């Protein structure tokens, strides 16, 4: 089952969660309310006719506040875009799910935005979410063990944020 | 040699004996240290050849034959590190304990008829007992290093060596039983003549026992595939993780010394010791004591024989090492307790029954007079009245 029929089923299963769909691009995707991502994923992984039993990748894309000079040219509002790439082993199809998050929780810089963890759906999401937390600064609520994974535990900042600045020094090592 | 010094050169007795003892000790030490140098070089060349590369090529001109010496100098010059949390005294003493055990076991190993440090009437027993002490140094090293990897290595080694002593002992008892003596010199003497007299070919049971002995010997000197104590892919380097420089090289010398020792022991117990496959000396009429030159010549050939056999054993161990993967600790213990021990016990029993039923061995041809004399104190098939015969024979042996 594919296409609109699948989307219909999805809408029926988690009403109101899917807020948008973009189908006429290279990789079609659906947009989901950020706080319902776990519900949607749970349905996709367990109950949907096409069982997306594998989470391939979680990415956070930082659409930052452009600096004033370029602001006129860009088309976006500052936000974080969460991208989930799912894969169905039995049906051999993929699905891209996106969710939008504010760059900072309640627009207070330094307060990480929150999104429900999908670790309960795919255990493999654990490390992916840790990586996104580490590099892009997203807090996954309900994650069993949300720690930095690639950077040292005492690293400051989240390097894949567009406004990230390399620290001047780290434990006596020159940074810049 | 002592006789020579005292009688011919007129030295006082105590000096003669002391010089003899010192010379013997130095010779054995040289066998271990020099042997280790040669074997390490050989191991590198063999590993190289097995792995389709050249091994050392430059040091010392051709074949890199000075490579181990260069390594030795490097090790001498290396900083001798000791971990901060180590138990200093034990850490320092451990390599020497290992090395001394390996050295001591050489004392009663016969290299040729009377080329033996100290002929002991319990030679086999002594060698096996002292060899078992080598593990002591390893445990001390593992404990004293204050490293968890070392401790793991030491515990593995303890479990492994203590377990493998059981089947090893059973294998060793078989030639002892056939020869009726625990004296290594006697055991080797009994196998003189053609190679068919070797205990390896004595009967089917001894043949199997020999291979069990090989397995257990490889295990008890910690060579691959039983090198669990230093398993570098698991335990970094096991018990010698924290060692460097000279102390580390002592462990190595002990390892190569033990390898040579168990190979030589196999040669003495199963393959006729210094007796070649063909009784060349007897055929040429160069029997013991026909003249000084012949006397020494025979000894020299015997020495070459034993060294050759032992070297082949060591080379085989190297071959195995560079071919096989390593077993896991539980599999090592399984091999010992479930296979080697029962098999050795059964073979021991079989060899004993064979000895009672057919005391002559399986290949009776090609027997030279030296080997036809067998001790009569094991009851023969003829049912001769055992008591008196036994007693008289034993009295002869004992006096």
């Amino acid at each position, binding site marked *: 089952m594919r296409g609109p029929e699948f989307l219909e089923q999805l809408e029926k299963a988690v009403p109101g969660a899917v807020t948008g769909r973009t189908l006429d691009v290279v990789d079609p995707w659906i947009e989901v309310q950020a706080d319902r991502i776990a519900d949607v994923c749970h349905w996709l992984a367990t109950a949907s006719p096409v069982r997306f039993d594998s989470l391939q990748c979680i990415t956070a894309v930082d659409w930052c506040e452009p600096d004033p000079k370029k602001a006129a040219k860009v088309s976006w509002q500052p936000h974080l875009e969460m991208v989930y790439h799912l894969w169905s082993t039995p049906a051999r199809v993929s699905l891209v799910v996106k969710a939008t998050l504010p760059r900072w929780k309640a627009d207070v810089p330094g307060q990480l935005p929150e999104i429900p963890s999908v*670790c309960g759906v795919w255990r493999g999401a654990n490390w992916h979410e840790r990586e996104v937390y580490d590099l892009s600064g997203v807090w996954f*609520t309900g994650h069993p063990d949300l720690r930095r994974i690639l950077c040292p535990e005492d690293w400051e900042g989240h390097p894949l944020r567009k406004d990230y600045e390399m620290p001047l020094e780290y434990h006596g090592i020159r940074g810049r | 040699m002592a006789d020579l010094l005292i009688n011919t050169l007129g030295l006082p007795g105590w000096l003669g004996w002391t010089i003899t003892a010192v010379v013997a000790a130095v010779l054995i030490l040289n066998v271990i240290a020099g042997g280790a140098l040669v074997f390490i070089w050989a191991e590198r060349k063999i590993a190289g050849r097995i792995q389709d590369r050249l091994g050392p090529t430059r040091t010392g001109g051709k074949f890199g034959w000075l490579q181990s010496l260069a390594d030795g100098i490097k090790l001498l010059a290396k900083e001798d590190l000791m971990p901060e949390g180590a138990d200093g005294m034990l850490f320092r003493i451990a390599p020497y304990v290992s090395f001394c055990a390996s050295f001591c076991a050489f004392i009663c190993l016969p290299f040729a008829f009377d080329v033996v440090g100290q002929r002991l009437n*319990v030679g086999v027993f002594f060698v096996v007992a002292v060899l078992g002490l080598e593990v002591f140094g390893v445990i001390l090293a593992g404990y004293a290093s204050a490293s968890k990897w070392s401790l793991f290595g030491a515990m593995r080694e303890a479990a492994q060596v*203590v377990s493998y002593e059981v089947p090893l002992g059973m294998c060793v008892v078989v030639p002892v039983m056939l020869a009726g003596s625990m004296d290594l010199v006697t055991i080797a003497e009994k196998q003189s003549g053609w190679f068919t007299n070797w205990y390896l070919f004595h009967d089917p049971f001894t043949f199997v026992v020999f291979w069990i002995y090989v397995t257990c010997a490889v295990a008890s000197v910690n060579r691959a595939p039983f090198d669990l104590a230093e398993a570098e892919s698991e335990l970094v380097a096991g018990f010698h993780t924290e060692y460097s420089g000279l102390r580390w090289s002592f462990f190595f010398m002990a390892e190569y010394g033990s390898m040579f020792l168990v190979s030589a022991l196999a040669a003495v117990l199963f393959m006729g010791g210094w007796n070649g496959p063909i009784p060349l000396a007897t055929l040429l009429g160069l029997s013991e004591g026909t003249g000084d030159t012949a006397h020494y010549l025979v000894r020299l050939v015997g020495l070459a024989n034993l060294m050759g056999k032992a070297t082949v054993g060591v080379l085989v161990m190297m071959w195995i090492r560079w071919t096989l993967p390593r077993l896991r600790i539980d599999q090592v213990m399984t091999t010992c307790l479930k296979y080697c021990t029962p098999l050795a016990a059964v073979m021991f029993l079989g060899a004993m029954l064979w000895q009672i039923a057919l005391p002559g061995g399986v290949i009776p041809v090609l027997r030279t007079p030296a080997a036809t004399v067998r001790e009569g104190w094991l009851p023969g098939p003829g049912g001769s009245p055992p008591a008196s015969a036994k007693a008289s024979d034993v009295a002869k042996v*004992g006096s």
Partner: protein
Amino acid sequence: MMTGLAMLVDAMVAAPLPVAAINWHSFFFLVFAALACGFAVAVVAADNIVRMALYLVFSLGATAGLFFLAGAEFVGAMQLMIYVGGTLVLLVFGVMLTAQGPFVSLKGSGRDRVVAGVVGAVLLAVLLQAAFSVDAWRAPAQGVVADPSATPIGMALVGLRVDEPAAGSPSPNVRPGYLLPFEIVSVHLLVVLVGAAYLARAKRRKTPRAIEVAASSEPPASRAEHAAIGRDRSRGASVLTGGR
């Protein structure tokens, strides 16, 4: 050590006795005796259990040397093999039980030490007195009697004494040996072996950790149940419950 050597050299040069007069048997006896006694004292003095075991091994090894000197080669080798091997196991257990624990050195109280020392000194005095009291025991050795062989002892253990003929035995030079004690010891060892195996046997116990290990390595029966297990483990499961 250097001082000792210098003293020895001094003594050799200045002593009224030439070096040739040294009885080498006695010399080695002294060496081994000093080692055995010295390390025995070290066992008493040491606090670290592993060091104690090491000293004990050295002491027992030196004693084996004494046995060799006394012509009891078989006993000496046995001592090396069994006694020292047994101590090895002690050592391993010492390490296992105390490796990083607080028991590496358990020090006795001072009072214990004093009492033990006094009792020991008295006992030593009594024993030494006894040792020197019999003249025959102090008579110097006569030297080598016979070429030692392990055969008599082996024969004795299987029931035949060939070294000391008994008067009344049927064959004039054979008397019964130690077959019965040998068998008793064999059975005894067997029982100990079985007992030790029983004590150290692997036993399956349902400890909390075991159950946890089993639960987490269990392949899930179905996907749905699997997900449920996962959700229970995550902390903030509230969001997910609505999806069921």
